[in-house]
């Protein structure tokens, strides 16, 4: 057991280190901007006095390293700074009214929405892809297997917005079953919220199911040549039982890995889908901020996405270590 804990601790430390370095990369990238924040806020017609005031207000007159640690320290405490777009301009030039929309206030409800979307998608996609993968492995090289193979390859390679619009066309416009715009606000009932989330969730399901299902199929088929599978077959077990009882538990490590990787993809791949469905999630906020160059929001979203991505990858790593009995019970 000792060695497992050591490996996991190592991975955790590595993950934290990566996150730290990534935050440096994001900070440096943003600081490569020509001019500085002050000029970006005020535009070209700014008076030197105003620029100077904002520089002081935002602490831009300090050296980059100090600023980086201030930013990181504040971010760790949940303070992600003030959004440019929502900023009260009076506050920047000295007459501080004390009321500001912070980035954290903007992001928090949207983050929750995005997590909801990802959770709904995972709840649909994981069982479906596992069942499809097991069935495809069971009936490999049959018509069913080939049809699923071609369908999944097609849905993996299509851009998300293509799948999204096809779904909108069939499920929202031609057969009005689901709303094509995910208008979500606070205080909605769960059922209503679910209904409005369903179409984007289905689109994402189409994207990730294909990958998960193919990996499940490949992982199981990989094991079918092993001696213990042969033995189980010779005992006269039914093919379904052989796969579910003997192949599946041993194929768990790669399957867990690919599920976690796809969840990581979900957190980040929601960007396009959220824009298509006007879903009020963090991805849409990110794209909007990119367009208006709202640097603090872009920076914060980028950090959150990267953190989620790294954490889920870390989780995949740790789970696949834990699912390996040879590591859990060393000799």
């Amino acid at each position: 057991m000792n060695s497992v804990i050591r490996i996991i601790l190592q991975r955790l430390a590595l993950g934290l280190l990566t996150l730290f370095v990534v935050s440096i990369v994001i900070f440096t990238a943003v600081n490569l901007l020509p001019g500085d924040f002050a000029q970006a806020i005020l535009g070209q017609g700014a008076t030197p006095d105003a620029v100077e005031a904002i520089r002081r207000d935002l602490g831009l007159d300090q050296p980059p390293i100090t600023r980086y640690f201030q930013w990181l320290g504040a971010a760790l405490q949940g303070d992600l700074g003030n959004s440019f777009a929502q900023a009260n301009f009076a506050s920047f030039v000295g007459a501080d009214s004390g009321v500001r929309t912070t980035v954290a206030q903007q992001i928090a409800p949207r983050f929750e929405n995005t997590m909801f979307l990802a959770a709904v998608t995972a709840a649909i996609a994981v069982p479906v892809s596992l069942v499809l993968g097991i069935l495809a492995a069971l009936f490999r090289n049959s018509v069913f297997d080939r049809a699923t193979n071609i369908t999944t390859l097609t849905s993996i390679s299509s851009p998300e917005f293509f799948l999204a619009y096809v779904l909108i066309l069939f499920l929202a416009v031609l057969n009005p079953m689901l709303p094509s715009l995910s208008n979500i606000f606070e205080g909605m009932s769960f059922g209503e919220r679910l209904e409005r989330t369903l179409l984007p969730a289905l689109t994402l399901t189409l994207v990730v199911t294909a990958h998960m299902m193919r990996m499940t199929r490949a992982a199981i088929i990989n094991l079918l040549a092993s001696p213990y599978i042969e033995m189980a077959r010779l005992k006269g077990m039914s093919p379904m039982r052989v796969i579910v009882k003997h192949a599946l538990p041993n194929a768990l490590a790669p399957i867990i890995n690919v599920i976690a990787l796809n969840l990581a993809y979900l957190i980040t791949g929601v960007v396009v889908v959220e824009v298509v469905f006007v879903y009020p999630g963090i991805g849409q906020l990110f794209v909007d901020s990119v367009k208006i160059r709202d640097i603090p929001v872009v920076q914060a979203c980028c950090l959150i996405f990267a953190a989620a991505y790294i954490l889920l990858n870390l989780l995949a790593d740790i789970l696949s270590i834990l699912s390996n009995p040879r590591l859990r019970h060393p000799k």
Partner: protein
Amino acid sequence: MSTLPTLALILLGIAAGGWVLRFAGQKATGNAPTFRDMPFAVAFGYVLGASLVVFSVWYFFQPTITDAGVPNAGVVFFRWAVQFFLLSAVAAYLFRALGRMIGTRGSKKLFRQMPLTASFGLLIVILYALTAIFAAWLAPYGQEAVFAKVNVLPGGNPATGGDPLHPLGTDQIGRDLLSRLIYGAQNTVGIAFITTCLAFFLGGTLGFLAATLQGWLDQILSRAVDVLMAIPSLIFALLLMTIASAWAGSERWLLTVYMILIIAVIDSTRVFRLARAVGLNIVVMDYIEAAKLRGEGLGYLIFKEILPNATAPLLAEFGLRFCFVFLTIASLSFLGVGIQPPLADWGTMVRDSAQFINFAAFSPLTAALPLLAAGAIALLTVGVNFVVDWMLHRSSGLKE
């Protein structure tokens, strides 16, 4: 919502049908092994498949216009999809048959072993390449040509708001959509191709260099790539595009150049990983040792010894990478920060015409516009993926 109970009823009926099929088969064939050992799931699958086929055929021959004179859009779209599917299957079959007849012995053999999906993919890739190269001759007008008639509907029928001069209509400032669709092949595919080549040049060179020299250079490059890969690529691309848009200012074309560079650098990290891994396996070979003892230089080692032996995996990766780059660029353009106007581009076209999809019930042709541009993107990536899938299958020697 009565959809769910109906669906459940249909599934129950199919389940009963499956049981009946198995039972009848057992009785009719005197317990033949096929039916005796058939699991219920398989019988269910047969009946489900058969019902789907029957339903499709029935639906296909439904009238396209209802009695009230309103187009039955569902049937129209279904017919288009089925016709497209059948047409592409026939085209792929003919293309494969053609490839089996003409060409060298090697190419003939290649076509003999090719599955239909791969020949379809190859056909698509060739067609796109031809369209991209000869866009200026194929397109009826230039991509920036603006006409007086704006918002002409597709169809070319003046009675329904079309114009025979513009078969796919014009956009909100009067540019011919067919021409822009054709030029889109040149711009979107061309830019994606350039980006992929750049990513491969960068990632491949650095990867082989790291594999050959090893030591501190390898360590620095590998750790840097690890960090860059820890940020999801679309997010990183969007972050860098924000900065690039500040750099580019009002120079739109400069932003496109920055986008090529940004995506090339982000994607070269993935190429670096592969090139380094493949290169590490090659540098331990005896012929590399021999070349080193002969006193060959670094350039000779990389380009004459390692590269030729790493072509197969790199080629498959090139296909996949191209798809990723192509989809990233399309997504960026769709989000409005990618390829900039006036260049015609499919991602932007999808975004601009997206709202037409709501008119599907009244005018299927108009609603098809955004799907046409998005489908053009999907078709190429699907084609490339089919070819790469087959290449990987062949080189891995997997039979099961």
